[in-house]
């Protein structure tokens, strides 16, 4: 548990700092009230509005852990939203609509996974294909219109509340916990990390890298399907043009802010979700703090640059070098290297 806390500490500290900062400008930020059976307040709003990116970030974390990237998630949101809205509008009922949307998300993930794991196309290139063409597919389903529906049961997934908390917030929280448990209570998490760190060695040890890779992209597709359902249900309509637009970038950013390396390996879903919350708090906070929303992107860019600086391998290398030098001066005992390493 303490290890878990240590892992997400930087993200918690960042989030807290931003909350404090926003509260300084807008003291009501941390106000939460209970009205008509639901909690209301800016923080509740952050939890709800952050849902799509948080949901995407869960799947993206897994993909990035395998040293991949999934550019298509925003588009998959549009496709699954369109499928869900179409099913509802065609009178299939809520459960079939949800199932169809989820199947669509899984199918998109399967497509990406096959391109990456079997055909061997670089993840960024492979997922770019679906990213550009998928929106066309979504528009094909909605026939270019904003496909609206009026089904309170489906709309619940976007604007309903559970125990007074907005359902989207409950959903990402539950999904994050569920996926974390799935990864850590089974061996999946370690196997995913293993293929992200050293695919060749993992394959030699008998890890089925191919199947795992496909599964990971399918998981990302499923997460995008949930995000698509939430976004569609929220506005009671599928907007194939704008649903999930550029959210893949926010999702990747959330994962990076969560301290997960783009080079794969060790991952933390909790930290990624916190990253998504940090992004949403900045977005909402800038508005509430009275800054014009046009500052939002510049501040976001500044934040990204700062995180890049802190995560830079070069910087880390310089830092380690300095530390090692200092250590060496204290104790002259050399580290043991092997001959193999000397003569690669």
């Amino acid at each position, binding site marked *: 548990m303490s290890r878990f806390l240590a892992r997400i500490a930087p993200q918690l500290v960042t989030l807290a700092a931003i909350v404090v900062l926003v509260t300084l400008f807008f003291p009501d930020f941390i106000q939460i009230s209970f009205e008509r059976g639901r909690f209301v307040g800016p923080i509740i709003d952050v939890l709800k509005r952050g849902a799509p990116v948080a949901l995407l970030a869960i799947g993206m974390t897994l993909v990035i852990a395998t040293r991949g990237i999934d550019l298509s998630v925003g588009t998959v949101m549009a496709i699954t939203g369109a499928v869900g809205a179409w099913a509802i509008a065609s009178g299939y009922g809520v459960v079939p609509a949800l199932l169809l949307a989820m199947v669509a998300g899984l199918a998109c993930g399967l497509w990406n996974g096959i391109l990456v794991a079997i055909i061997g196309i670089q993840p960024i290139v492979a997922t770019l294909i679906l990213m550009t063409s998928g929106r066309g597919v979504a528009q094909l389903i909605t026939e270019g219109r904003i496909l609206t529906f009026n089904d309170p049961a489906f709309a619940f997934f976007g604007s309903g509340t559970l125990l007074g908390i907005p359902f989207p917030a409950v959903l990402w929280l539950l999904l994050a916990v569920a996926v974390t448990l799935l990864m850590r209570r089974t061996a999946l998490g370690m196997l995913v*990390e293993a293929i992200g760190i050293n695919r*060749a060695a993992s394959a*030699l040890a008998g890890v089925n890298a191919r199947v795992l890779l496909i599964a990971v992209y399918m998981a990302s597709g499923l997460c995008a399907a949930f995000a698509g359902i939430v976004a569609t249900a929220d506005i009671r309509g599928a907007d194939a043009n704008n649903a999930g637009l550029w959210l893949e970038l926010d999702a990747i950013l959330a994962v990076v802010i969560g301290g997960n390396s783009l080079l794969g390996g060790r991952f933390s879903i909790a930290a990624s979700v916190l990253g998504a919350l940090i992004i949403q708090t900045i977005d909402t906070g800038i508005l509430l703090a009275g800054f014009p929303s046009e500052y939002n992107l510049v501040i976001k860019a500044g934040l990204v640059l700062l995180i890049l600086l802190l995560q830079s391998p070069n910087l880390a290398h310089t830092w380690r070098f300095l530390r090692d030098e200092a250590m060496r001066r204290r104790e002259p005992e050399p580290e043991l290297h*092997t*001959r193999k390493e000397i003569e690669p």
Partner: protein
Amino acid sequence: MPMLLTIRSLSKSFPGARALDQVDLDLRAGEVHALLGENGAGKSTLIKCLTGAYRRDSGEIRLDGAAISPGSTSEAQELGIGTVYQEVNLLPNLTVAQNLTFGREPRRFGLVNGRAQREEARRMLSGYGLDIDVGRDLGTYSVAIQQIVAIARAVELSGKVLILDEPTASLDAEETRMLFGVVRSLRDKGLGIIFVSHFLDQVFELTDRLTVLRNGQKIVTEETARLDRVKLIEHMLGRELAEVEDAERRRTDPEAKNRSELIRFENLGRSGLVQPFDLAVHRGEVIGLAGLLGSGRTETAELMFGVRAADSGKARDENGDVACGNPREAIGSGFGFAPEDRKTDGIVADLSVRENIILALQARRGWANPIPRAEQDRLADAYIQKLDIRTSGADKAVGDLSGGNQQKVVLARWLAMNPRFLILDEPTRGIDVGAHAEILRLIHQITGEGMSILVISSELDELIAVSDRIIVVRDRKHVAELTGDDVTTGAIVRAIAADDGAHK
């Protein structure tokens, strides 16, 4: 004759190891000089000191009598030392002409003059006997032609000393012949050529003199014609035939011959990799695979474990066919494989010692059936203790351990699987003496429990110490099998050195 290049007392250390120890080397103008030694002997370090990739710790390098100290590859190039590596260090996505003239393109009005560039390239290639279209991408030509283009560039830029680092490793006989023609004509023009290769036939065919390195020290420099193969291999492997043999010889179990057969590989092979071979593995036996680097010893292991697909043959046991078409199948059939390159194929660096040890076991159980944490800890602690893995804890990242301990972790991974047939490729390379003995002791111990092992090693005394019998591999062929009293250093060296004339 004046020396073109003289190296005196060159030393280079890395933390914890001395890679070069007072090495001397003389290179004449107009000679091909072979540089020989097994992995880890110091060849690469010596070359890197010459080409400026490493800074030497001490010693002197003189080129044409003047002391030099190149600080980078390009500096060495300007001084006159050019290098061509096994993996051609040119750009396959540029044309031959672009590669040859890179950085010195003829220009007109600031723009590269394509016609002049191609003419220049053709001029540079003239005399190499290559009639190729210099306007095509380098990558569309065979490796041999790429090698010659690389040589042409190196000669043009440097022109005094040419270092050829394993240039023939991926060439066929005809291509090698073509390359040798080029090398001879350059020698006749007065270049000093250092030729690194582990193909002894080629050394005898091409070179005038040779220098053998072993463990970072110069063992001998001699005219090639005055050495025979046996003598040369003795220098390389550090064994004198006259030495007392078999002091450490494993006392062969007299019942070895009666042990039941475990697995039989029939006609297993892949063209261009290893010629089809038959091999029967008996219960509780240790088979040693001897051969020089590049002889096909590692490839044999890779075929058995399905790392590379065989194009002929199969494996079978008493119950019928045994699947080993890919690593997962091989593991399912009870095989294990600790590969030679521990860093790229063995460890998963960022995972902990514990996770690395249970990785294969977990992969076999499937993701849904995790090994309970208590069991993981028990396994990890047991193997850390059993193999004496030096780590501050089971949760330390394996990448932070020393090489020997990393090797033990990979070994532990397979022992935890309790395989029936374990392949160990260079299990003791880069491991300190203490751990070395431990691993050998371990091999004895586990075969005592009924496991069968195939060991690949370039250290003959080690092979002899652990093996019940030894298969000798040469030129991608299994050429000899030594059993019982025939297992001696002399016999192995003779089998490796034997030249059946087929290779000429």
